């Protein structure tokens, strides 16, 4: 099933973002963590002691589990909206 529902709203134009080394298609202005979630990129960060994979959890900017590196800076991806050419790094980055 196409997980994006187009019944009520038209999304912005189609753009490309780079996640680790992979190019992913998305719509401009979509929520970054949602795009990663449905693009099978659910592992966003690594937990500090147990080195577990973690991903989007609360979608309210509260839990900080969806933190990724965007163009070098740490961001809470559920508060970030897709722009063409975004470079996102996820996963274990030495204490990330």
């Amino acid at each position, binding site marked *: 099933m196409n997980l994006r529902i187009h019944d009520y709203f038209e999304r912005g134009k189609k753009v490309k973002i780079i996640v680790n080394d992979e190019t992913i298609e998305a719509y401009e202005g979509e929520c970054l963590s949602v795009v990663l979630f*449905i693009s099978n990129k659910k592992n966003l960060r690594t937990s500090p002691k147990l080195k577990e994979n973690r991903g989007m*959890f609360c979608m309210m900017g509260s839990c900080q*589990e969806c933190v990724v590196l965007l163009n070098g800076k740490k961001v809470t991806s559920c508060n970030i909206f897709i722009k063409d050419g975004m470079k996102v790094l996820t996963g274990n980055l030495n204490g990330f």
Partner: protein
Amino acid sequence: MDFKKEYDTIVIGAGPSGVKAALKCSKKGQKVLIIDSNQNSGGQIYRAPPKSYVKKNNKSLEENLIQIKFSEHLKKNNIDTAYNHTVWQVSPGFKINTFNEEGVIEWSAKNLIVATGTYEKIIPFEGWTTPGIIGLAACTIMLKSHQTVPGNKIILSGNGPLLILVAYYVLKFGGKVDAIIDTSSKIKWIQSMFSLILNPKNFIQGISWIFKIILSKVPIYSNSLVTKATKTKDGISIEIQNIKNKKIKVVDTEVLAVGHGLTPSTDITRLLRVDHEYNELKGGWIPKLDKYFRSSMKGLYITGDGAGISGAIAAEDKGELAAYALLKDQNIIDEKEFNNKTSKILNRLKRYEIFAKGIAELNFTPTSLIKNINDNTILCRCEDVTKKDIKNAVSNGAKNLNQIKSWTRFGMGPCQGRTCQYSVAKVASEQLKCNVKDLGYLTGRTPLRPFPLDKAIGDFEYEEITKVEAAPL
């Protein structure tokens, strides 16, 4: 938008409560600013789709219409709106510091209305940190705001009305709900109807949603909880246990949405050190408020679900009540008008309080959920602190949440204990055989949200840095 430096009243949170409070203050001549970290008004319950989404046709979700009306009213009443602003510091007096894409900005106001709503309570279980497991509220936001179904296979678990709401929307959008795992019994739901019916609109809507779920033949596991989640090659394997007969069933899914009710957001009130009280039915720790939502700090009013869970409709009334209290305290309206306007609202709220109690009972945290947490389960996700770590600290003499935090690092990560404070308190109180309220709550700290250093420092010359005198030699 051209912001002023100072306002009569600042409202933090543009959900139903904050918007109504702002409108009421503005209508009586106050200069009002409303701040929200989202792109638009509506809060979480009426969260607008992203700005880049354009309405396609005449079909509309009701919540979207309500949200659009909020924004229209705010504009019409010349209320300044600061969307995409994250509040990082609030000082008494009041000074509000925020950051957004461009940098930092500080505002001051004589009065402050805090309408920051709630967080979702999620009681940990083994494997709850697996990616693909999200909150029920998170799922709601994905569906209603982002117009996206989380996955091809979805299971919902937890308790309360969000189970119904999320199931309904997944089905409405053409998705599939493979199971609903509810800690409540079907009898509890029927019992709660007597309270829920006092909000007829929501009640009827709820009943229609339940019908759709039943007609769609979604398997419902009542009196059950998720004991374990394990990552598999293609998704997540869920272990469901019946609380009564302990029977276990294993089901595979792609996405698990879990939620155990809501708990008021007390970040700002704890930071300002106002008095709080513990009320389990209202969601946990709430600021101590009079019946007009005045806090223990002059000029500070707390409204909406952040003042105690009672739902979105009650939130609007609470916002108006707080605004009237503010206007009276500022001598903008007299005693007569105050009593006149507020008595009607107070009567309405009495009804909603009963409705709220019904919801609260459905969201009540059963002890089975706490007992289900095993020693190796992570409680603090930010710092990987397990139940065992908490128990050790308590055994070693830690007597309250702040001390447990100091010794285990729980609550020291970027979420500042928002996600885990409730469960840690439940676990520790069980071990100490004391009431949850005896453990206190985590001291509020700046920043209220992780504060990007690049925004904080802006562009500066080294010489500009306000230096204090050199330390003594």
